[in-house]
């Protein structure tokens, strides 16, 4: 269980302050909604470790995450855009999810199977810049698979996609979450994404998370 208890935070020089409490279960998608500027991305930044709360607790299965740097947290990210390094191929992008020093043959095999799992078997050598929006998000998901971290944070990952692609990408996220037991936290302001995917749903109102 991913648990945030009374995480208190304020952007420097901003009057608004946040106090977040939430639970996200393994194998489930927990959705976060709220008005623009309500602090959804800020919540994810807190969970990922890009900003630090003034007080509160953040644990995964009882382990304290707050002392950990972003790269040391059991967290993968999928953002709206800029998830990939454009000049690298799909394969090279995905491989960044593997620990450094993974033997080449093993790496190749694991990257290939991860790309296959997200439905991009034939795309290994394509430069990321030439992939479509949906394909890019899938490559990022393949990288998440290879990283094998317990928490997946998604910040409006489907909003740049057309309807058809967003449905299939969305289903893929749900499927991977269940299969790998991820604690997936999805920020979205699309009611149908939330209805289709989420087992739990919070809304940010005046700096607090309210369970819907």
């Amino acid at each position, binding site marked *: 269980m991913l648990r945030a208890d009374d995480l208190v935070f304020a952007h420097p020089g901003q009057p608004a302050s946040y106090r977040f409490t939430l639970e996200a279960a393994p194998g489930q998608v927990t959705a976060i909604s709220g008005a623009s500027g309500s602090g959804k991305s800020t919540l994810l*930044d807190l969970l*990922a470790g*890009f*900003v630090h709360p003034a007080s509160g607790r953040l644990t995964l299965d009882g382990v304290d995450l707050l002392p950990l740097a*972003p*790269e*040391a*947290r059991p*967290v*993968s*990210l999928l*953002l*709206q*855009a*800029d*998830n990939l*390094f*454009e*000049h*690298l191929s799909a394969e090279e992008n995905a491989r*960044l*999810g593997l620990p*450094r020093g993974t033997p080449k043959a093993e790496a190749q095999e694991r990257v290939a199977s991860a790309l296959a799992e997200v439905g991009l078997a034939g795309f290994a050598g394509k430069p990321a810049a030439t992939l479509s929006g949906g394909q890019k998000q899938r490559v990022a998901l393949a*990288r998440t698979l290879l*990283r094998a971290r317990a928490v997946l944070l998604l910040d409006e990952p489907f909003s740049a996609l057309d309807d058809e692609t967003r449905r299939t990408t969305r289903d893929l996220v749900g499927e991977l979450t269940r299969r790998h037991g991820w604690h997936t936290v999805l920020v979205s302001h699309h009611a149908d994404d939330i209805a289709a995917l989420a087992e739990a749903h919070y809304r940010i109102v005046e700096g607090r998370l309210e369970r819907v």
Partner: protein
Amino acid sequence: MLTLPHRPLRIAAATALTLLIAALIAAVLWAILDAATDAASGSRVDIPHLLRMTSLQAGLTMVLSLLVGTALAWALNRLRFFGRDLVVGLFAAAIVTPGMVVAFGLLSIWGRNGWINQATESLFGIRFDSPAYGLSGILLAHVVLDGAFAARILLARLDSIPQNRLKVGQSLGLSAWQRFVLIDWPALRGSLPGLGAIIFLLAFTSFPIVLLLGGGPANQTLEVAIYTAVRLDFDLVGAVRLALTQIAVCSIVILLASAFTPVPSALSRSAQPSWRDAAPVRVLQWLVLVIGTIGFALPLLSVLYDGLASGLLRVLGQASFWRATLTSLVIGASSALVTLALALILSLGRSAAHLPAARTLLGVPAYAYLAVPAVVLSLGFFLLVRALGVPGGMAAPVVVIFANSLLSLPFAIATLGPPLDAILRSRGKLIRSLGLSGWRQFAAIEYPLIGRDIGLMLALAFCFSLGDLGVIALFGTQDFQTLPLLMYRALGSYKSNDAAAIAALLLIFTIAAFVGLPRLLERIAHAPRR
């Protein structure tokens, strides 16, 4: 784009101005060509040798400046400390710092009687050959200026890397090297060819630095050779041949460079998450930053120190100094205003144009000067004025003001063009649906939003013409001289205390204008900081 308001007047004015500038450049070229053909006598200039030496010097300057600039931008992008804005501002000022001032500062540190030699002599009793003269001195001065300039431009690229990309990279735990290769390099790569071409051109056409530090014909640039041919050897034929060579080479470099994306000039700011590299890498970054900052600031500080310590009072008592100051300020202010008028007409017209071809055409004047640099331009004017039979003394101020405006024009357009384009792109629909007149569009929307950019542009143009030596060197007389010319003449007659004082005052004027004008204009325009 149908969302743009119709502004036929703007487009017409810009087109007319473009044609006028083109005609003028053509007249200048014609004057040069005409002088080349009707001269039968021989000339002693060795063009192949000059070309070889200048290309070598400009190539080395380019490579070294890009390396230094990249290292500095990398360090500055990573480090956060009190006074960072000041350091960034210092590097931004490199573009307007007069070459003469830097050359003089380097001499006072590295020269025969510089600090270093005095220190080693009093400590160890040895003196060594000064590295401040010849090729090494020219390279040193160029890299101080152009390395800082490159750092500022490249830093802007690094600072505008999308937040998301940094978050993903940090969360993946990229090493400092991977971070550079995967995130920084792609952001820098696109700017390097264009920036490299600009630095190559600046070094290839460098005038005051080479004049002061070159130490003779072995290390001349074409510009210096032209000046020598006209003013010292009275070899017009040689000068014209040199000018044609210069135009040819510069045009080729510009054509090559224009195939790459232009260097964005926006000096933007952005907040970044605190992603620190590993401790040993940070030590390296601090080292790079401290060495770079000292390397750039020390020559300038030494100019201030030398100038304000020794000759200041004597210089302040000279009537010729005050006349030169007045001339410099009047010429600087006039050519800044002329530049503003030209740049506004051209950029407003260009941003209103729908057709890509029209936009390209209206962008041409920006490049005119790059192909026809200072000394060549003034040589052309010089010949033209002579051919028209106008007395040189009467034409000189007008020509100097106008030539300096043309020289500032590319930078002025690069400053005003992008924000004007951006305003029309984001607010064009609104302006159109409100049915605003062209004048109200400018007064109510564009002027307040670009007030700060206008200030920056005025500051650039003012500083360029304040520090100019290339134009005034050909047109200056005993009664018509600016501060740089006065300083050059003081050096020529071994009054180095006077020269030091003038250099210090020149630097102070430049900094005051560069820092003050953008703020002043921002206040006048009531512009919000963007």
